[in-house]
């Protein structure tokens, strides 16, 4: 599985309140949530994001609330992958569980700027910055997480197991 796209670059501690503000949580419709994704930190994000684009951020991405609406909004906005130095733990679980690929790789984060074209191979963990011609290696997903991702999330994974 691979992703390729242009980079939106953010700093430390991007919290779930700016990813999807609580005032929009009276719905859980992915399209409605995506329409307000990143609104309070980057009002132009929704206008500029294209399918396949990638978010790159520094430490503690997704800190704050447990709202699964945050990775849902990011995924529904067309983002194919989030790369960060570290993720807040609930966001990390949620992203895996809904099938939004995320990778922790500090070196890659340091070597990627806004607007760079980046390609990610989830099977190997290899991250290529096509704009700068540099390559980084993140730790690939452990086996059970790969299965969850391959099933497009935990729910399908559980359903498949129940049918076995």
């Amino acid at each position, binding site marked *: 599985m691979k992703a390729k796209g242009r980079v939106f670059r953010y700093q430390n501690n991007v919290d779930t*309140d700016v990813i999807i503000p609580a005032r929009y949580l009276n719905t859980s419709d992915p399209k409605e949530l995506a329409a307000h994704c990143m609104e309070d930190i980057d009002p132009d994000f929704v206008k500029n994001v294209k399918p396949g684009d990638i978010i790159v951020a520094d*430490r*503690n991405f997704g800190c704050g609330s447990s709202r699964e*609406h945050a990775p849902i909004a990011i995924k529904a906005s067309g983002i194919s992958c989030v790369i960060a130095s570290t993720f807040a*733990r*609930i966001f990390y*679980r*949620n992203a895996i*569980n809904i099938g939004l690929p995320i990778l922790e790789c500090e070196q890659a984060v340091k070597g990627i700027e806004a607007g760079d074209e980046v390609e990610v191979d989830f099977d190997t963990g290899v991250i290529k910055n096509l704009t700068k011609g540099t390559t980084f290696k993140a730790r690939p997903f452990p086996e059970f997480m790969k299965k969850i991702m391959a099933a497009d*999330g935990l729910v399908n994974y559980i359903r498949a197991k129940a049918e076995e």
Partner: protein
Amino acid sequence: MGMTMTQKILAAHAGLSSVEPGQLIEADLDLVLGNDITSPVAIREFEKMGINEVYDKAKVALVPDHFTPNKDIKAAEQCRFVREFAHKMEVENYFEVGEMGIEHCLLPERGLVVPGDLVIGADSHTCTYGALGAFSTGVGSTDMAAGMATGKCWFKVPSAIKFVLKGKPEGWVSGKDIILHIIGMIGVDGALYKSMEFVGDGLQHISMDGRFTMANMAIEAGAKNGIFMVDQKTIEYVEAHSKKPWAVFKPDDDAVYDEVYEIDLSKIRPTVAFPHLPDNTRTIDEVGDVEIDQVVIGSCTNGRIEDLRVAAKILAGRKVKKGVRVIVFPGTQKIYLDALNEGLIAQMVEAGAVVSTPTCGPCLGGHMGILAKGERAVATTNRNFVGRMGHTESEVYLASPAVAAASAVTGRITDPDTLLKAE
């Protein structure tokens, strides 16, 4: 290798004699919690799994508390969806408006969590129950759905940071000041993926309400959970509130910790977190002159009876500064009634505060006290992120009920001691 409190609880629930940090385990759940924001997503995922009943009707708790009483039509539809699911599944712990409260105030009060339990909740402040010596942590809606269906959840066993609390807090210093001090010290990702374990002689000077406040904010340091050593105070609380069996897990003498901090509680000053992160802390002596428009007293962090007693003690016989809006949110119906019977509500209303029904309300910018552009609030809540309580150019300062109440009287962030001495 010795185990921490958290590791012991996880091992016991995974049927293992021991676990070590980094190990992936599947553990049995004693309770699965959701609210009106996170449950609708979870219920849809649950339905996709093709399972017709929850794993245990007594071990699921659904608490519509965020946008309730329903703030608009969409919120009303979400609540109805949760209500219908609760009835269909015969969920025993569904709490309608009238019997509900803010989830993390309500569950311990109802005796639904006891020492040694393993609890997940689709709300980040589920870590609150660590005050009782339970392992509890926030998860997303899909984990909640899987938990409701199977009664199990996977975990990566966390390492831990130990906080050895010593001495006695002075004056108005409360659990809120202690946890803000700690978050300021280690940062908003200082405990990322880890447990925060609170032990030491100083614990005897921290009430259960204070411990709930501290465990509640473990997530603001990025922690997986915060947990307190069980002592006499815990046991008295549990015996007064619950009939469930419980178990005490003490850390092994040779338990391994990533870091150990000794904290002298007598040295901690009332502490305020400035915008826009909970680790941006200053002592009350370093605050300077910060004028405010609104004061919020309540939430899952500080909406308990002791918090209201402190606020009422300061507001009694005084007047809220003209032009400042003070909104008080008791955490549950019982806390509301206790405050009424103790005369606290009358004291606060006479001072010029409004008192709301229990709800998460403005804490997350939901309703009941949203800030306009440029406005500032002192809040006893847990987060001060950009736009958290309203406009992206509004500001939230996190503080204790004592500091919040004193600030309500003066219209600027104020040390309660300064207020009392000035009079």
